[in-house]
């Protein structure tokens, strides 16, 4: 059984069909990449899985069960974590506090016990901190632990956002353009981390990415989209050389150009 299944999902904004009859499934333990030009509907698919949008048709199943009856805040509890294309961190909080918010899914204490800070709450806090310390070690964030997000460079913020998603201890991690705006070295780091997330942590990864080198080096399967429609699915190599994909990215020479040539 696949971990995540999209079954003929369609989403319309008024007259615009943003996602049209998209079906794919992500198997447990693989890295699955969505590629496509701008406006292809990649991030929209993420927002559909996060339940920010309701699909007009189709079904989305996680672990065999439909998630369409779930509210957006219940998705994290299922074990689906995500990052955002334009970094949505908590700016006026420290890196550690940001990561600790990722632990919200594992909160067992109630309001009154927290206001009194009972020994139970303290024990829970220690457990949370132990868990995020592992994330900090994994992503080499030690130097930034107590720094406020507002003062951090872009590249570090990207990593913190990935760390916050990992603090959820997800089964499925949605990475929305993890390498956009990063330098070559930072992109290489991301590639290593994605490999480690898959192999060491056993987390399934679904990612949107424009950097075809990164996609080719880490992903097991790729789905190419354009204008909300599926173009091709397969290994990175297959998809990169698929005629429809080449057409969507580069275009075909029209009659006029052919004459000139």
């Amino acid at each position, binding site marked *: 059984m696949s971990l995540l299944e999209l079954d003929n999902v369609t989403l319309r904004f008024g007259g615009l069909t943003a996602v049209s009859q998209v079906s794919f499934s992500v198997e447990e333990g693989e890295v699955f990449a969505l590629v496509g030009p701008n406006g292809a509907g990649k991030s929209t698919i993420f927002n559909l899985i996060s339940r*920010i949008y309701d699909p007009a048709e189709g079904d989305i199943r996680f672990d065999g069960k439909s998630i369409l009856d779930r509210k957006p*805040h219940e998705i994290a509890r299922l074990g689906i974590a*995500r990052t955002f294309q334009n970094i949505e*961190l908590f700016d006026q*909080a420290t890196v550690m506090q940001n990561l600790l918010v990722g632990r*919200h899914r594992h909160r067992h204490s109630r309001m009154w016990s*927290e206001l*009194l800070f009972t020994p139970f709450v303290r024990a829970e806090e220690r457990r949370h901190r132990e868990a995020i310390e592992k994330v900090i070690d994994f992503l080499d964030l030690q130097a930034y632990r107590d720094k406020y997000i507002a003062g951090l460079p872009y590249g570090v913020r990207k990593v913190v956002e990935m760390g916050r998603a990992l603090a959820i201890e997800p089964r499925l991690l949605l990475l929305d353009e993890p390498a956009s705006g990063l330098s070559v070295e930072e992109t290489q780091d991301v590639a290593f981390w994605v490999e480690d997330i898959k192999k060491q942590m056993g987390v399934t990864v679904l990612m949107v990415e424009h950097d075809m080198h990164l996609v080719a080096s880490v992903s097991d399967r790729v789905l190419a989209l354009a204008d909300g429609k599926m173009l091709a699915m397969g290994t990175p190599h297959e998809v990169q050389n698929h005629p429809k994909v080449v057409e969507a990215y580069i275009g075909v020479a029209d009659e006029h150009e052919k004459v000139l040539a």
Partner: protein
Amino acid sequence: MRTVFKTSYDADINLFRHKQQFGWYLALFALALALPFLLSNFALGEATNVLIWAIACMGLMILVGQSGQASLGHAAFLAIGCYANVLMQQRLGLPFLITFPLAGLIAGVAGALIALPMTKLHGIYLAIGTIAITILVEDFIVIAEPLTNGVIGLIPPPITIFGLVIDRYSTPNTLYYLTLGITLLVVLAYRNLQRSPLGRSFAAIRDSEISAQAMGVNVARTKAVAFGISTGITGLAGALMGHYAGIFNNETFNLIISIQLLLAIVIGGLGSIHGAFFGAAIVALLPQTIAFGRDMLGGLIGGGSIAIPGMEAAIFGLILILFILFEPMGIYGRWVKIRTYFELFPFYRKDMFRRQKAYLKTERMR
């Protein structure tokens, strides 16, 4: 500069960062305990007033500073706490020890219920929505005359705790100590909130609702809880305010009080407990300071007392404008800068606290 080497998770969890910090706060507490022996009865009354305002400011600070929602409706919750406390004492004959926490609870539940339909509003719209609460409650006090005695007002009975009578004029010391104790409890609850998951989820919905949601935070419920805790604490301050004022009616808790509360926390410094105290001191002491200044000025030019209507509001407005222009982080922000300057001397840079613009906010989803 002091560097704390953390050797356990508790270093981040504990209330004080290091022993010296604990020592400083202990000294401050000792000073607060000794205050009745150092001040005249009048000055002690003013100190009590500052503490009561500090409780109210902490209540609003939790909402505005921690969870990022504006409210101009907090005078209403002062009123709810105040009336609930006194009415339960007068009509039901309950003792203060029971009515006081109940008053906070009633104001808190009322706040959470009112917040539920308002959680979709943001920023200025929320502020306008909450103005309605203040106006409605003020009018309700007038209309519900059989219960609230309308514009004539109510006179709270003296507080009795196990036979100990607490009254502003006959026993100012005990009222001060009672207020001090409650202030400490509220500070403790605030600190506990800040270091627990609930406080962090407040910060999360303040900075980015969309990712708070993705982390599993129920945004609407968390906002309502923030409102509830905030208005509950404000209700406690209202109950004390009633006892301190000696008599109160619908005009005691009007829109001006709401605005003053919001001004206080902005001037004090948003998001910090210190800010609540600094702001409370400004708001509670300013009228007296102006009065003193006026008398002094009158004595100097020999013209008797000068009464300029609207003087207080004008000075308030001026202070607020100056703070927003020159120190948006408030008194506490300025204090942190001065402290950092000396800690890092001579390596302090001018831009150290400059706020950075985040990337691509235009594409953010609400």
